[in-house]
């Protein structure tokens, strides 16, 4: 293949993919801003109730987990630090929330980036959530977590 053809194919290929991704990312970011503006997440943290209860965490864990799932790990991490500073979470709880979120976070943005390039995203998302719950459950139940 000639060098010009290689440059051409790389340019077209990369720009096309970025356009595809932009079509997903821009509407998604608008949705996320609406969520933040109207504090919608704070209103639906009960969704996390079955998970936090199953893992033996207090309800205080709901918001960091939901925020990490929807907005990403840095956002969730910030809320963990806040709650911890106010003494509302134990070390054990902080550890389990971290474990949950490193396995499964920013489920819309990251997942859709791969959907844009052709991955089957539904089974992946499902698998991540299930794995996060199972691993956290096992660690919470059988591993002694201490400071």
């Amino acid at each position, binding site marked *: *293949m000639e060098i010009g053809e*290689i*440059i051409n*194919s*790389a340019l077209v*290929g*990369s*720009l096309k*993919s*970025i356009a595809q*991704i*932009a079509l997903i*990312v*821009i*509407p*998604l*970011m*608008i*949705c*996320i*801003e*609406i969520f933040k*503006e109207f504090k919608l997440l704070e209103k639906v943290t009960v969704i996390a109730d079955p998970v936090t209860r199953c893992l033996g965490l207090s309800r205080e864990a709901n918001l960091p987990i939901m925020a990490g799932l929807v907005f990403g*790990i*840095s956002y969730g*991490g910030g809320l*963990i*630090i806040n709650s*911890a500073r106010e003494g509302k979470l134990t*070390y054990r709880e*902080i*550890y389990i929330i*971290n*474990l949950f979120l*490193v*396995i499964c976070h920013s489920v819309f*943005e*990251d*997942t859709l*980036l*791969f959907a844009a*390039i*052709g*991955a*089957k*995203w539904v*089974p*992946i998302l499902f*698998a*991540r959530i299930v*794995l996060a719950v199972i*691993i956290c459950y096992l660690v919470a139940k059988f591993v002694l977590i201490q400071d």
Partner: protein
Amino acid sequence: MMIETLKRGFNNGLATTYQLARVVIPVYFIITFLSHTPLLHVVSDFMSPLMKLVGLPGEASLPLVLGFFLNIYAAIGAVLPLNLSIKEITIIAAMLLMAHSLPMETAISKMTGVKVSFLVLARIILAFILGAFFNLVM
């Protein structure tokens, strides 16, 4: 206020797209050029036994490593020129979603005050387990 919110979301989306483009385009170029040199084949042959475990070709180790150490954007830039099948893209997407941006995200966990060694190890191991799982069931 609603207009402001929409504008902010739109701008965030553009900013993310720009960040992504800044990484994806150069990585895409580098991998495309590499694929026309023997170097990619050398790496590919070397990594192919490990990658076989998850049903991926040896050269898919490049986006995996880029994703682990840098971020998802770099990984996407490297996945695209490899012309993987839908099944292979799904496998590598699952692995990368499980383990990516490890230095940066681990730093965030560390800031919350927990010990992080197990967290990192768990992500890498789970990435391979998940990859092998999708290879089997798809």
